[in-house]
C-alpha cells in the first residue's frame, strides 16, 4: 500500500520575472515499510519536496496523497489533524522544546491531538523504551547528547499511529557512528511498517534507503535500481 504519493507535483514561487520553479512535475510513490532517500545538491528542491509531502505547503500543480487520501480537497484543519496523527518529522537540529523533558517532548503531539495526558505519557515512555532511552525520559534536551536528542526526536516522530516519517538531514549534526545509530533506528521503524522519506546530500546516509531518487534543478532525474543481494560483494574475485 502506498503511504505517500506525489503525482506530477510542481511548486513555483513568485511571479513574472521573479518566478522560481522549485519543483517540476515530480512523481514519487513510497510504500508502507519502505525508506526512500532523496539526494541532490543545495537548491535542487529537496526540502521543498519534503514540506509538500508533509502538507506544510501546497503544490502549485499536481496532487499529494497520504495514506490514500488526497490533500487537495482537505481543509486546513483536516490537514493539521492528518499531520498530527499520521506524519512525523525529524530535523537536522532536532527541534525539541527545551523546557520539556524527553518524555514530555514525545508525548506532546499526542496531547495536542486530544489524548489524555496520562495515556500520552504512558505511550511516550513505551516509545522511548523501544529506542533505548527509558533512562533518559526525565532529562531535558540540554542534558542529552546529540545522538540522544535525535533519538528522542525520532521517538516523537513515530509515537502513536504515525505511518509516514519525513526526515531532513537527520544525522547531519552527528558524528558518523552516532549518525549510523540514528539511521538504524529509522530503518527499524520502516521494518515495523512506517514509510520514510529521508532528504540528504550524504550518500552514506542515503545508502540505508531501499530506493534513492536524485533531484536536480527541481526535477527527479534518476533513481537507483532495486537493491541486489549483498552476496555479490563477497564473491571471491581476483583479489589476493
Amino acid at each position, binding site marked *: 500500500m502506498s503511504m505517500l504519493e506525489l503525482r506530477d507535483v510542481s511548486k513555483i514561487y513568485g511571479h513574472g520575472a521573479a518566478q522560481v520553479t522549485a519543483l517540476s512535475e515530480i512523481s514519487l510513490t513510497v510504500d508502507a515499510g519502505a525508506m526512500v532517500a532523496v*539526494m541532490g*545538491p543545495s537548491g535542487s528542491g529537496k526540502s521543498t519536496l519534503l514540506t509538500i509531502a508533509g502538507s506544510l505547503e501546497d503544490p502549485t500543480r499536481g496532487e499529494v496523497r497520504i495514506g490514500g487520501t488526497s490533500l487537495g480537497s482537505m481543509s486546513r484543519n483536516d490537514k493539521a489533524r492528518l499531520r498530527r496523527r499520521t506524519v512525523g518529522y525529524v530535523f537536522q537540529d532536532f527541534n525539541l522544546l527545551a523546557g520539556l523533558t524527553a518524555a514530555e517532548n514525545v508525548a506532546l503531539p499526542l496531547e495536542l491531538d486530544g489524548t489524555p495526558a496520562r495515556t500520552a505519557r504512558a505511550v511516550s515512555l513505551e516509545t522511548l523504551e523501544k529506542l533505548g532511552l527509558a533512562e533518559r525520559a526525565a532529562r531535558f534536551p540540554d542534558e542529552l547528547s546529540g545522538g540522544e536528542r535525535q533519538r528522542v526526536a525520532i521517538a516523537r516522530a513515530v509515537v502513536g499511529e504515525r505511518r509516514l516519517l519525513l526526515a531532513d538531514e537527520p544525522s547531519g549534526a552527528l558524528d558518523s557512528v552516532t549518525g*549510523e545509530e540514528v539511521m*538504524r533506528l529509522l*530503518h527499524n521503524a520502516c521494518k515495523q511498517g512506517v514509510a520514510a522519506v529521508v532528504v540528504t*546530500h*550524504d*550518500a*552514506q546516509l*542515503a*545508502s*540505508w*534507503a531501499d530506493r*534513492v531518487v*536524485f533531484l*536536480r534543478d527541481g526535477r527527479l*532525474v*534518476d*533513481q*537507483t*535500481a532495486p*537493491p*541486489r*543481494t*549483498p552476496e*555479490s*560483494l*563477497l564473491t*571471491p574475485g581476483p*583479489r*589476493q
Partner: protein
Amino acid sequence: MCGSVSVRHALLALLSEGPKYGLQLREEFEARTGEVWPLNVGQVYTTLQRLERDGLVESDGSADEGPQKGFRITGAGADELATWLRTPPDLSAPPRDELVIKVLVAMRLPGTDVHEVIQAHRRYLVELMQQWTRIKEDEASYDVSLALVVDAELFRLDSVIRWLDSADGRLKRAAADQPDQIQPATGALPRFRRRVGVRR
C-alpha cells in the same frame, strides 16, 4: 587494499600471536577481515614459502607441505611487521583515475552531457553503497572486523561521490561563468597535468 603485500603482513601479524599451521592461518585471516577477502590455501602456502625464503618466518622443519606444517615468526619478521604497520601507503601522487579521465573527456566531447555522465556514475556508486550497507545492517553490528571493512568501503565510495558532486557543481558554475572552459579541446593538454605531473 588487500594485495599480496597485505596478505604477507597479515600472516606475519597472525604468527606474532604464536606458531600456527597454514590452514589455521587461512581461517583466521578470513575471520579477521570479516570474511570479505577469501584466500585459497595455495596463496597462503606460496606466501609462507616467500616469507621463509626472506627469513621472516621459520617452519617446524617437516618436509610435508600439508596442513600440519607449522610456522612461527622470526625476530626479523617481527621487525618487518612493526615497520610495515607504521609506514603510510603511498598516497602522495595523484593516481591514474579512470573516473576522472571519463569526466574530463565527457566535458569536452561534443553532444555529450557531462552531468548525465556524472549522474550515471553517481547512481552506480550509491547502488554499491546500498549493498555494503545491507551487509552492515545484517551482520556488522555483531562483528567489529566486518564493520571496519564495510566502513572502509563506504568511506572510499563516499569520497568518490563527493568528488562527483563537487565536479557537478564546479562544471555548472563554469558553464555559467566561463563557457569556453568546457568547450571541446583544441589539442592542448589540460593545464593541471603539466603542473602536477600525473603518474603514468
